[in-house]
């Protein structure tokens, strides 16, 4: 079943077009990667799907519009936005009360996630006093608290240590195994190669290529890694070569 359907999505910031009429589908049980350089339009695409910014075109999340599907979405933004005056515990209680979650369910889930992400010592410390990595962990736990069917993760592994990254990757794997879907943006090729079932290569607001890793390799007749494939698709291979030559002073 299709979890997310995006048709002709366009995102404008005044005169700038950040996303230019892109279309794709994400199925249940699938990790769909948005891969592209900085400023390619990944975050704008993700924000539109999360219902945070106005857009043109059509987005359906399990058949619903983003505004109506907020209970189905767990979103971890690239720039962490939390209420810094609260402690993580107060923040989770705040989220649970707005989402009207059952207290017992939340406590059980929270117990597991707090242990997994090792933030028990910080539960009563104001978020303002936490490190960036710990803030990210809090944001991830808050996104998982209501068992969302769709996880939208914008560069989720940035700022996380190796152990936490591994745990988050496992959580993602379990999520899709249980029938959930994940939209995941990154500019790190190795992560995309390891995690994603299908990848869309985005540049300048357009999808240049889409498919599994093998399909993308076939597309550009490359037997290299995803980085080679990406550079070929985005036409940056020659540019990189020239830069490297220039650096050989």
């Amino acid at each position, binding site marked *: 079943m299709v979890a997310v359907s995006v048709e002709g999505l366009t995102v404008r910031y*005044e005169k700038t077009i950040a996303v230019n009429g892109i279309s794709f589908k994400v199925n249940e049980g699938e990790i769909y990667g948005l891969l592209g350089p900085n400023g390619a339009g990944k975050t704008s695409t993700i924000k539109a799907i*999360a*219902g*945070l*910014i106005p857009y043109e075109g059509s987005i359906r999340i399990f058949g619903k519009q983003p*505004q109506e599907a*907020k*209970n189905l*979405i767990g*979103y971890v*933004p690239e720039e962490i*936005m*939390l*209420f*810094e*005056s*609260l402690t993580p515990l107060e923040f989770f209680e*705040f*989220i649970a*009360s*707005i*989402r009207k979650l059952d207290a017992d369910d939340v406590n059980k889930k929270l117990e597991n996630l707090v242990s997994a992400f090792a933030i028990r010592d910080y539960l009563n*410390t*104001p978020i*303002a*006093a936490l490190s960036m990595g710990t803030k990210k962990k809090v944001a991830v736990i808050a996104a998982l608290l209501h068992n969302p069917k769709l996880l939208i993760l914008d560069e989720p592994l940035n700022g996380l240590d190796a152990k936490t990254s591994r745990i988050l990757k496992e959580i993602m794997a379990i999520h899709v195994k249980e029938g959930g879907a994940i939209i995941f943006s990154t500019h790190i090729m190795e992560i995309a190669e390891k995690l994603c079932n299908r990848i869309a290569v985005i540049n300048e607001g357009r999808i240049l290529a889409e498919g599994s890793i093998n399909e993308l390799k076939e597309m550009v007749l490359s037997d290299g890694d995803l980085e080679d494939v990406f550079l070929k698709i985005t036409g940056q291979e020659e540019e990189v070569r020239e830069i490297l030559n220039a650096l050989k002073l």
Partner: protein
Amino acid sequence: MLSNFSELWKVSGVLYKEIVLQSVLSRNPLATTNRKIEDIVKTVNLNMWFNKILLCIMLCIMAIAPIMNRSAINITIFLAMIVFLFIFLGIQTVTSFVASNFNYLRILPLGRDEISLVNLMTFFRLFDLPLVMLIIFFPLAIFVTTFSPLHAILAFIAVVVSEVFSLAILICLARLFHSKIAHSTSGSRWRGLLKFLYIMTWSLPAFGFYFIARFAVDISEISSRYSGVISSHYGVLSFIFPFCFGFLIRGSVSLQLLGSCAVYILLAVFALKWLLSAINEISSGTVRVARDNSIRSQNQTTSSSSWYAQKRSEVDI
């Protein structure tokens, strides 16, 4: 609906605390190095209540003269002081309110109308005590001293109009500071001057407290001295806010006075509508941040003396 309203009120409490904290941190970025941030968070609510109570006390002190001696100049000064105090004591927190990031609320299952309402409640929380205190206290005091319901109603209208004007000017200034200056990184001289004015306006609350405490008696003396002058210029001043309300509450009645008061009431209604739409814009995330062609200038390096560079970076907010 009532339970929903009370839930939204609780949500606005969280946002309010967040805005006050951000305001404290932006006012003094070094606070986090000098004190443990936990202590700042713990005392943030207490400090805000202290400020509100202080504002109430100052307004009460300012209200003594117009209540005891209901002269036009006393009432006029009092109404002007309402606008002045709200603007200069509220500019820091309201700038933080305008700059606040409500994106997290938009992730949660809250409708647009609910987010707007939360935002409005949060804004109200910034001034709740002084706003309500003024609306009740001043008309009541006028009623007690005059036994005239009409004068009490006029005092009520005058206070409401003054409050609406001050809040509208506050939001306007905060948006200007936020969009054109505080978030701008370009280094033009004009922008530098605006930034300097911004710093001055932000630091005025400290002077404001001193000013009121030091010159309260002088203001009252000046007002009694110039009472005659004000009356002699009745024709012109009756067109000007807040003189028109001063004359009206004093008991003067003329067609031009009633006309100008009606115009200011109408203006206050428009200002209130604008205020609500501005707050709605903030909650929908459509407040524009600075747009400038600063990217090019950021990438250019110029050599200057270390002293000059340091001073420039200190002035840069």
